[in-house]
């Protein structure tokens, strides 16, 4: 087990260093790229904190859409979710009609997208779906 600070704490520290100390000393293109780096560090911090549970939910949701038991699909959560995604793409690329699958997939993928955005860009998806922001 690694010593404190945790990965999440270190990432938060790096982000704050970039924002408070480095950004103000720069300008132009370099300042812009450091801003991008800072944003990526914040994404990684949220990923460290929220990622594992989001992955578990993704696994459960995709398993439900495909009506599969994910346990047999891989040794790690990442492998299982990768395989579930691959299989769902395969089903969605198959010819023929399957409105039920599309509806189930849409619901699961919407929930998964919200979880992804909680890490990649909090606030982008409104808490209450509805309205026509897209």
């Amino acid at each position, binding site marked *: 087990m690694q010593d404190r600070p945790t990965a999440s704490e270190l990432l938060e520290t790096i982000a704050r260093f970039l924002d408070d100390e480095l950004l103000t000393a720069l300008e132009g293109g370099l300042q812009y*790229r450091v801003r991008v*780096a800072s944003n*990526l560090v914040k994404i990684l911090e949220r990923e460290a904190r929220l990622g594992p549970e989001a992955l578990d939910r993704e696994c459960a949701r*995709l398993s439900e859409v495909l009506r599969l038991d994910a346990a047999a699909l891989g040794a790690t959560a990442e492998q299982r979710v990768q395989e579930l995604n691959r299989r769902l793409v395969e089903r969605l*690329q198959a010819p023929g009609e399957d409105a039920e699958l599309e509806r189930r997939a849409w619901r699961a*993928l919407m929930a998964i997208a919200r979880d992804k*955005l909680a890490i*990649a860009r909090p606030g982008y998806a409104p808490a209450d779906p509805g309205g026509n922001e*897209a």
Partner: protein
Amino acid sequence: MSELEKGLARYLTAEWGRPIEVRGLVETSAGARRRNVLFDAWDGGEVQRLAATITPSAAMEIMHVLVESGALRMAEKAGVPVPHLHAVGEDPAFVGGPFFIGERVDGETVPRRVLRLVDGAGIGELVTAQIGRAFAALHAAPVADAPSGLKQPDPGVSPVDAGLAGLAEQIGELLQPGPALSLGFRWLQRNRPQRSELRIVHGDLRNGNLIVGEDGLRAVLDWEACHLGDPMEDLAWTCVRTWRFGSDEREVGGFAALPVLVDAYREAGGDFDPDGFHWWKVYGTLRWGIGLAKQAAQHIDGSVPSIVMAASGRRVAELEYDLLALLDREYGGEA
């Protein structure tokens, strides 16, 4: 004097047949693929305020400079506000790569600054209407006026089917399976609009490719994506959520609501098809999501290493969400 200033001066001197001095050169293209420079051309009497777009090498061209300049001239003739073109050069001897020189149009081009200017001056609806009129003028241009070499669907293939074929190819190149993107593609295949027209379209008209001032829209830039396609593709692309740069509730580029665009487009002779618009908006949203994934892939494979390109990979989720939200009517409903 820099090499660039010397090169431009040599070119204009030869082109205009009198000694030209280049002064006050300013680069405005930090981080962009092409160089955009502003400068004055002085002939001993008159000063011409000019702007040059330079592609570092011909290999990097998305569209041949003669085709792009042909598109600019076609657009000007059709009544679309564009910078007037003065000269086009292919020979790398002058500035290292292909270039064109046009009149300098003052105004704002950086998206968030454009939005601040528009909000401050209260001209959101004006700019939106101007975009509508620019589109109507462009889409009314005779297809025969299109420069030769312009991309178009294969004979007998509709713009809708050509669009789907292009997407299919790109989806096949994704680094990882993307079921949200695949669901969007599946919907597009199974819900093609009835109508499909072939006109000259800009292909990338959005905040970011406009020059805007206190009096509104002054010029439409970046005609590299110009092609023959469905006019609804153009209107829909402008309305993709990403191009609202945070002013999400105003569908048209963060400027105003959709009816303002549609009314102006129709009043200027444009034919607005709501089903086609919705289809091409789903298409554009999917296409941009794939485009961002491709940027990340180019960083990962080392072809374009850049922190900005890498970061694009983590923006795909936004387009996936937007895509799914656009299909809410179709698949949403009961929880």
